[in-house]
């Protein structure tokens, strides 16, 4: 194994210093209390009419390598609601190219909502947290949404004229064929079919993001008329020690990131927002 890059710590400190101050100065988004119970996952649900959209400006990611100097998406519209049990974000943005097909040279559209895990007046680094500054990142992926809505694309779907010999799982059975299934065989959460198109994750800085064993985040994305509308919801309180605890009246923060798959945006090549204050309405 090799040492981590030298520049990481210095850049991280710089990002922390640059981000914390403006967050508190902004007018907060209010997570409006709405009736109902359970997760709020429908982008067309009536409850969103109760929340006013807030424009959130996005920045190019030019701190950690690799950079994205000119992101395709410059602004998101964000609404936040909660029903006492679940908080939910509706994120909308213009995207003329719907991208949910993954082959060697194509990438999927994605959006992420980030929350600090520990309540504090000053949040951790908005750039995926920092050592000791844990964040919860709920990332919706268009490719996962496709798998849930229509089933995973097979080789035949991706390459209509494909031909292959017998696959191991056709003769060995599911368990014995696992070693031939790569990341699917070891249930890498970005590979396997999941019940939700949203990955519930924790991060303490660049490169540390980990999909949590317990998945609580849910959501749904709909692409229509050249734009995405994605709802992401999570329990306000859970028994997960690595999840935020949100109560009515509390002040917290949220940050956002978006990837335009059609422009080959992926991973660190993203548009991101600094922290935006959020007040959980009573």
């Amino acid at each position, binding site marked *: *194994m090799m*040492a981590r890059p030298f520049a990481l710590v210095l850049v991280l400190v710089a990002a922390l210093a640059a981000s914390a101050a403006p967050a508190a100065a902004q007018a907060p988004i209010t997570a409006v209390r709405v009736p109902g119970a359970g997760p709020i996952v429908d982008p067309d649900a009536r409850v969103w009419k109760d929340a006013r959209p807030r424009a959130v400006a996005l920045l190019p990611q*030019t701190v950690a390598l690799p950079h994205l*100097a000119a992101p395709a998406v410059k602004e998101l519209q964000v609404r936040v609601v909660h029903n006492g049990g679940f908080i939910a974000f509706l994120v909308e943005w213009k995207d003329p190219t719907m991208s949910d097909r993954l082959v060697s040279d194509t990438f999927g559209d994605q959006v992420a909502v980030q929350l600090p895990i520990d309540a504090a007046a000053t949040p951790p680094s908005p750039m995926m947290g920092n050592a000791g500054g844990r964040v919860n990142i709920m990332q919706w992926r268009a490719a996962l949404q496709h798998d849930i809505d229509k089933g995973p694309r097979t*080789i035949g779907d991706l390459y209509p004229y494909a031909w292959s010999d017998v696959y*191991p799982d056709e003769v060995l059975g599911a368990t014995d064929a696992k070693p031939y299934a790569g990341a699917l065989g070891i249930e890498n959460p970005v590979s396997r079919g999941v019940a939700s198109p949203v990955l519930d994750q924790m991060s303490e800085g660049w*490169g540390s*993001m980990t999909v949590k064993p317990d998945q609580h985040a849910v959501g749904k994305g709909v692409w229509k008329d050249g734009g995405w509308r994605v709802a992401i919801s999570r329990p306000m309180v859970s028994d997960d020690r690595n999840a935020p605890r949100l109560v009515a009246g509390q002040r917290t923060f949220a940050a956002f990131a978006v990837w335009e798959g059609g422009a080959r945006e992926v991973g660190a090549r993203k548009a991101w927002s600094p922290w935006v204050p959020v007040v959980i309405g009573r």
Partner: protein
Amino acid sequence: MAKVYNWQLGREMDFPYEVERPERQFAMLFDTNKCIACQTCTVACKTTWTQGRGQEYMFWNNVETKPYGYYPLGWDVTVLDKLGVQAMDGSVYTGKTLFDAAPTGEVILGYLPDDLDYAHPNIGEDDATGVMPQGAHMTMPHMQWMFYLPRICNHCTYAACLSSCPRQSIYKRREDGIVLLDQSRCRGYRECVKACPYKKVYFNSQTKVSEKCIGCYPAVEGGRQTQCTTSCIGKIRIQGFLGKPDTPDADNPLDYLVFIKKVALPLYPQFGLEPNTYYIPPVHVPAPYLRQMFGWGVERAIETYRNAHQDPKLLAAMTLFGATPEISHYFRVDGDAVVGYDAKQAEIVRVPLREPTVVRALYDIKHKVYRTNIT
């Protein structure tokens, strides 16, 4: 950027990480003069490791015809074109590496192949540089040429895939220098696919993450050579370990051939990754082409190779190619034979340096027939 020493360039270079060389380095040597592109290695690798869904066109091992064969399409000429003309006038490389040439905001100069670039694994197969006119084959050397280039992951000392992954999902093992991609950490960003100039990391559309050659580490850990090596019917390969370039062990066949005799050369050393597969250059190919592909010293390597029959120790090391499925950590000449030893210095193989030749009479008196094959 850290300063690291790249012995193949004869100088220090910039690399994103500080690097401590592994205790020993997985390496493979190929005698391109013996390869016939039968693809037995390719099939052995495929049936062992990449039979699954999403791996249909994924070849951790491939053999391509040079100069017009590529897998994926145009991989090396694309990278060479992006890097541009560089100075290489001696054993110290003064041009830019791919790390030196990284665009602003990037770890390395690279490119992501198109999906269709993987659709032609046999493109250019057996194509020579041009047409041989009537009767041209009667004169040597031939004016046209081609050769076969077998390739696996280079398990580079300064791996581009490893350095470009923002999640550190790729790591290099201290015990043997094998570069592995953690299938549980990878998220399919494809930074590694873009960064590796040899294009030996592949995206799997069914698992949504990337995969690469694992150096047959389960075999290597058990003292056996890789599947592509042991299956080679032409005995063109040997796989083992390299020691440190500044303290080569003359009793280690790989150290002897690479560091001491310099008869096997790295693939595109100017890229700056210190790749760890080494090639005995084809003797019939023009030197300018070979210098671009294998770096400075190709003429000397070919001269050394041509004279191997006069050098018992060199001949001995080369005779170990394909001689045993086990890894020869040490070797020595014993009379008319070469003896290979495992890591505990136990004898694992003994091969005569020259096979005895028997010439039989043209006419078989007993069976009253002429022999058509008399050797």
